[in-house]
């Protein structure tokens, strides 16, 4: 047995190290190391609550709006303010813009380039995939980047800029949308739909959204037009490499729910465990620091009472990441978890067949590109230019609030306590904190640590390609993870 250290692990957001014990031709055990600490939770203590809106988006350049939305919700919860309908729809549009751009970036820039590696040269599918997805050289990124940039003109209109907008407020948005701007955004969405339908799917968004089982997906692949789309290329590779057998964690999924509009969420809140949907008990969340480089104060704490005190000498520590647990158990978050909890029939069918794995995580992400683009078309139609976009409310001197939402890569929560008009405590659990957590007091490995067990290692591989597929299938964001 040999401990192998893999890093720097790129095409994830931020820095990542993975340590592997390899036995024979597979991974026997894994340790996931988040190697960087900045200390936003410490920075925020003693600040005016409203200043969170300027600091918190800067935790992350790829989930910046998600951080902003979570902070706005935590402040809104503390104030007791509700958004007007326009505010809600505007925030949904801005957030969806980021989340979908992230899904696209992940697929085209972070995930697919691994299949263009030399190690796959002998595979029957290799040549067209390498032409399309080789990092920096393939034809796909050159098509995707302009489409993505054009799609993000929505940000220019509705949020001023991306990342790091201050347009999102607890009570709505700072930017009223005029009638002609509404048309501009609708046109922008039309162009994005065209890109998805011609390049990514080779089919209409409606047909993708309507796929309802693993068998239907197999049937869909029988068409030449579908098979030669980028989604088709992926499914073809996935079948050839059996990506549905790679990277299974605990199949225990969580989603906070996201995109509220008119009293309903586009994607619902819940937990999927032991093959059934359950209510999410927020009081059962704890952050364990047994294997983190953090000072320990008694037992694992609920984030309202969380403490963040870094200590690199902590014995048994091997990561800056804390280990969040739900009822002492490891959960997986992300697009797959979100669609499993929300009950999309294709995802339920795929998970029933093979659980949470590399293939199904990618399929869920691409499915969301179809589902959420269609929802964006509805939200922009619902914007009423002559009505209010923001409600205002003063902040009490003593309050607490929680802001829960779903970023592209999963469940993001902010827990805030205000005393004497200042931030007393601010605790953040990011999606990749859940997925890439270290072990806990019970020595339970985190979700990725579990998912890596059994990953095949080919002869002579220093950085096993299967490990790379598994890690990237989670679409990790390391700068959020530790923050």
């Amino acid at each position: 047995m040999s401990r192998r250290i893999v890093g720097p692990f790129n095409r994830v957001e931020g820095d990542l190290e993975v340590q592997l014990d390899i036995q024979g031709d597979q991974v026997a055990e894994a340790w996931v190391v988040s190697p960087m600490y900045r200390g936003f939770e410490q920075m925020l203590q003693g600040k005016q609550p409203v200043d969170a809106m300027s600091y918190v988006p800067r935790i992350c350049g790829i989930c910046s709006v998600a951080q902003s939305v979570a902070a706005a919700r935590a402040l809104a919860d503390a104030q007791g303010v509700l958004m007007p309908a326009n505010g809600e729809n505007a925030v949904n549009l801005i957030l969806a813009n980021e989340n979908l751009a992230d899904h696209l970036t992940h697929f085209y820039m972070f995930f697919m380039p691994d299949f263009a590696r030399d190690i796959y040269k002998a595979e029957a599918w290799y040549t067209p995939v390498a032409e399309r997805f080789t990092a920096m050289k393939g034809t796909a990124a050159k098509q995707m980047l302009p489409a993505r940039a054009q799609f993000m003109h929505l940000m220019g209109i509705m949020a001023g800029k991306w990342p790091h907008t201050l347009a999102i407020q607890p009570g709505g948005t700072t930017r009223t949308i005029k009638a002609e701007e509404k048309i501009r955004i609708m046109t922008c969405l039309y162009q994005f739909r065209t890109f998805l339908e011609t390049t990514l799917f080779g089919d209409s968004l409606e047909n993708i959204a309507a796929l309802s089982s693993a068998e239907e997906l197999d049937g869909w692949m029988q068409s030449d037009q579908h098979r030669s789309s980028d989604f088709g290329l992926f499914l073809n590779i996935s079948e050839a490499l059996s990506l549905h057998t790679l990277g299974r964690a605990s199949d225990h999924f969580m989603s906070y729910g996201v995109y509220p509009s008119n009293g309903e969420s586009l994607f619902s809140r819940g937990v999927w465990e032991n093959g059934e949907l359950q209510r999410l008990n927020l009081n059962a969340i704890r952050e364990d620091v047994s294997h983190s480089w953090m000072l320990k104060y008694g037992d694992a704490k609920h984030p309202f009472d969380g403490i963040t005190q870094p200590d690199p000498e902590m014995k048994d520590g091997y990561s800056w990441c804390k280990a969040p647990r739900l009822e002492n158990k490891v959960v997986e978050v992300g697009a797959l978890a979100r669609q499993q909890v929300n009950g999309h029939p294709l995802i339920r069918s795929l998970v029933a067949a093979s659980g949470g794995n590399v293939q199904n995580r990618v399929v869920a992400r691409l499915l969301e590109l179809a589902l959420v683009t269609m929802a964006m078309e509805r939200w922009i139609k619902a914007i009423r230019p002559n009505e209010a976009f923001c409600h205002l409310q003063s902040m009490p001197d003593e309050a607490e609030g929680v802001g829960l939402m779903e970023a592209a890569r999963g469940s993001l929560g902010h827990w805030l306590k205000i005393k004497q008009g200042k931030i007393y405590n601010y605790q953040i659990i990011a999606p990749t904190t859940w997925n890439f957590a270290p072990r806990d007091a019970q020595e339970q490995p985190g979700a990725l640590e579990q998912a890596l067990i059994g990953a095949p290692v080919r002869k002579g591989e220093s950085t096993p390609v299967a490990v790379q597929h598994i890690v990237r299938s989670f679409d990790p964001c390391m700068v959020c993870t530790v923050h």
Partner: protein
Amino acid sequence: MPHQQTKTTLLWLQSGGCGGCTLSMLCAESPDMISSFEAAGIDLLWHPSLSEATGESVLDILQSILNDELRLDILCLEGSVLRGPNNTGKFHMLAGTNQPMMNWVDKLSAKAAYVVAVGTCAAYGGITAGGGNPSDACGLQYEGDRGGGLLGESFRSGEQMPVINIAGCPTHPKWVTETLAQISLGDFNEEHIDALGRPRSYADQLVHHGCPRNEYYEFKASAEKPGDLGCMMENMGCVGTQAHADCNTRLWNGEGSCLRGGYPCVNCTAPNFEEPGHPFTETPKIAGIPIGLPTDMPKAWFVALASLSKAATPNRLRKNAISDHVKIVPTIHHKRKS
């Protein structure tokens, strides 16, 4: 430095930041980011978000540079240098190396013809140095507005240049792609940077230039709450009249800027912007009068003009300034044919 015939080599590292300057750069348009690099003859040796190489093959690239087997023309750092705790650099150990990132950056900087700080974090410390600066973050050649940082005030790169500070939180895609292209063409020297090391191409301008709220500014018709249409200088913390950048003439994501998005400029291209000493979205005042003057404006004149223009504010602007929708439109003047 060699160019034209051979490509310009570029290594991009990330440390104490959010990756947002790279993500912003992905929004480059006409041309897109990859075409921008190609057109400038830039060969990306490695970038953490964009390159194929992972793990050992990355370490091989870094080692080849240190061994002088691979020429390094441009080193870009995105994110602050993390020195803590207690100067150990352990707040960021480069994965796979068991070495503090600050040591890698230090050693690689000595090999680079040009060293570029991408974003305010890498330039001056930035948001990562906010609050009590828990990670002991600093910039490559600055700590806030003081020279020093990781490399020290006297540092000069292979081409005898100080660190080029493309400050901004985040950077505009074109601030980065165009500066890198200028460097690659051998068309960038000390005359092209300002007193804080920022490319003058964007830092010689003020965010105020091209602000669509100019009429409100002229008449001191001020916004009072988020979403109001008026000038945000008096109450909302906006420092666009003092901030060095071209955000309102070179727009973001098509047609945006902070001010166009309805929120104040927080001077994110400046050292120490992360700790303004007051809430970001409130203007500090003494006896009701805002502290902070428009750049190059004599105080007495500003006060005199402000009170004069306040007295002369048209009703239209007074009403619209404190509304989120235009209440009164400009009057149409009918011109009679004679």
